[in-house]
């Protein structure tokens, strides 16, 4: 059996008094690209925030590489690579300062030369010494992704990380993630609305509705939906959502 990088069991979380997650269970194995789908406001970002330790959970367990995010948050976070929302990046720091500070916060002894190469492939190098508040949305997104890749993390958590990226950069990023996954260096958990990514890259996809995982498709099922043509995945999502609402 492939090693499990992320295990979430019975996760409940609230925004104030409003319950957002109502018992989420999922697991992600090393080498797996896991896509989280669902309409706006069903709790995808909240789930990612709980997994990355940004938000406290009410009940349930989140375990990253065998370390509980509740009991051993520091150990669990060592294995994580998270792309924050572009608007959360510090506007007064340069891209270089962000990367160096984030690497120090992750306790890295050095920054791998591979990251500099990825920055060059994403055409980010010219922006390295400019302040973040001068960046466009796409450039901020590139920096957020670079921060997530720092230190070769075992679990890469991305929240709509392809939004705002130009097609060439998006393709480069997908290829980079695919290489890391095929080398079994990491697992990817991506919240997205892009069905194209699910169709061509996902190993597992889960549909979230009303704070729960309503339906999950494995690699074989996704391949089956792909063979149905352009609307296969869209129709499957609509059918799953429809059956839940009835």
């Amino acid at each position: 059996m492939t090693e499990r990088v992320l295990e979430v069991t019975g996760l409940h979380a609230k925004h104030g008094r409003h319950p957002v997650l109502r018992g989420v269970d999922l697991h992600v194995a090393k080498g797996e690209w896991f896509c989280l789908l669902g309409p706006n406001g069903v709790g995808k970002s909240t789930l990612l925030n709980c997994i990355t330790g940004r938000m406290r959970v009410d009940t349930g367990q989140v375990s990253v590489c065998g370390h509980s995010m509740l009991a051993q948050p520091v150990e669990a976070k060592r294995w994580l690579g998270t792309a924050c929302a572009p608007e959360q990046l510090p506007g007064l720091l340069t891209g270089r300062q962000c990367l160096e500070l984030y690497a120090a916060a992750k306790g890295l002894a050095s920054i791998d030369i591979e990251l500099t190469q990825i920055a060059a492939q994403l055409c980010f190098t010219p922006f390295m010494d400019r302040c973040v508040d001068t960046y466009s949305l796409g450039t901020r997104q590139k920096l957020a992704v670079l921060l997530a890749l720092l230190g070769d993390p075992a679990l890469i958590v991305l929240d709509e990380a392809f939004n705002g990226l130009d097609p060439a950069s998006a393709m480069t990023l997908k290829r980079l993630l695919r290489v890391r996954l095929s080398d079994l260096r990491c697992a990817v958990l991506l919240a997205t609305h892009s069905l194209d990514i699910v169709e061509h890259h996902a190993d597992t996809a889960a549909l979230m509705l009303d704070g729960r995982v309503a339906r999950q498709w494995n690699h074989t099922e996704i391949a089956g939906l792909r063979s149905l043509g352009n609307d296969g995945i869209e129709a499957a999502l609509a059918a799953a959502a429809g059956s839940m609402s009835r």
Partner: protein
Amino acid sequence: MRRAGRIEAIGVATLIVALAVAAIFIAGRFDLTAWPATLRDYWLLIFAQATLHSSTSVARRHRRAVANWPESWLAAAPLPSASVRLAHAIDSFTTLVVQYLPACFLLLAIAAAGRNLHAAKIPLIALTVGCVAGSIVAWRWPGRHRHETREASRYTPSMAATESALQPSDRALSHWPIARAISTGRPENARLLFLFVTLFAMQSGISALEGLVVLLLWTLAGYLVSLLIAVVSVANEAARWLRSTPLRWMGFALPLVRRALLHQAIGTTIAAAGTVATGVSWLQALSVSGLWLILVIVTSSVASLLSYRP
């Protein structure tokens, strides 16, 4: 998000409480009851300062309100223009009113404590007339939208482009509050200080050198206060950004306050020397400086402690 907001509110509340305690301590140590009578002699200065402050504050907020209106979610709604103007007026004047009322209250309270309410009359009239005059001018001629659209980082010390390899470093965390403090106090607003000191020199008949010392102290005090506020706000922002990393509290708090504390220590020493040069005794200068540094250390520690969560 709610927790972050709560932490921010606690941080701001801590700062306000700390400032209030410091104010009570200073008020207790020094007799302030003669202030209204002293201020009476400086009515022109009060009037000029109130006019300048109200005109720049209202004009800036008015320009921003007008510039932001097309992006408002109500921009396409068929609202009467009078309602829109009223909304802009509330937006433009609220801050000034919030500043004006406590200033009046403070002045009256000090005068009442000295059983000489009459002494506060002229400073109050000068303050009120200045605020009203500045507001009318700013509302009628708000000027052009110039500086508001500039990125905040334009005001931070420039970073030289470097070809060196990336290395993990927490230096940026130390640099961040300084950058925030400098970008908050935009230097183009400093020109008003020169007018202030000129007026001060004109009315009180002090020398140009003394005027320069007052200007230096004013600028320095503004920077030190902005730096303290910057540490509190950066602590929140940085903690939120770095929350998904395995950073420990010491690794967070020390770099955050290191450089800011150094600036505070140097700035406070210069300010103490400046106040001594204007005739204040060494003992008074030292006690106020010490109190300020204690306030800085306590506020910075509390802010980093409240913001951080493993």
